[in-house]
């Protein structure tokens, strides 16, 4: 725990992550501008997922946290994903 506390993330790491986040934002604005039909939603959500992964890993320090916190967060997101999938299985097959 003392090790983690003393792990200081350099400013440059955060700047690089911000650059990546901005890039993905502009990319998602660009791809939703083109008519891709069904793929527009999929593409925008995929980019949002990548962005949230970056925020969770670097800005929220999960990369530097103990494994059990990462597992906890991952588990909660998987449960949420499962709820979405089950909901849509219901609507698709009605």
């Amino acid at each position, binding site marked *: 725990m003392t090790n983690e506390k003393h792990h200081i993330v350099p400013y440059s790491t*955060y700047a690089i992550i911000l650059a990546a986040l901005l890039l993905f934002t502009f990319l998602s604005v660009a791809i939703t501008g083109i008519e891709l039909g069904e793929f527009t939603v999929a593409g*925008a959500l995929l980019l949002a997922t990548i962005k949230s992964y970056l*925020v969770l890993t670097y800005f*929220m320090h999960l990369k530097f946290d103990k494994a059990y916190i990462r597992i906890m967060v991952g588990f909660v997101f998987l449960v949420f994903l499962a709820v979405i999938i089950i909901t849509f299985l219901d609507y698709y097959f009605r």
Partner: protein
Amino acid sequence: MSQAIHHDEHYDAEGSKIAMWLFIFTELLLFGGLFIIYSVYRYLNQDAFHLAAEELNTTIGAINTVILLVSSMTIAMSTSALQKRQKGTTLLLLGITLFLGLVFLVNKYFEWGVKFEHGIFPGSEHMTENLSQGEILFFGLYFVMTGLHALHIIIGMIIIGVTVAKVSSGKVHADRSALLENSGLYWHLVDLIWIFLFPLFYLIH
């Protein structure tokens, strides 16, 4: 929480962090439920959602996205600055974060203001008479979800304000940084929610 830190000698950074994450999970439940409602209604009213979404200003949405992402970086940097024992830099970075939060809210105010001028607000005459059920649903979800998000921005700014006070008075420092780290986690959560709100409401037409 801040009182416990203030009065109690007991300090457990890891315990605080777990508590913060547990709280974040409840927030995910709150917004997650709304996201599921949004997706189901979108699936059931595809054309109406398509039509209604064109009413939203993608440029303001994109600007607010950039603002929140930058503010997330500045608060993340402030934790590094605190650990490096650079109090001035920490306070400066937190100040920038607060300022960006305020700019976000001002943009939101003008954005909602334009909607109100066009007669688009929950229960308005224009909406109930001219818009379809699906469009009313879209705008209802838009106001509830962006409104709840803006409320989180306000709460986040209050928490950051408290942190600024405690950093400048020296109660929060490199060896006792849990409050700053947890405010950071909360602010990133707010950012995380916006990362999904932006494409769902503004981008997908």
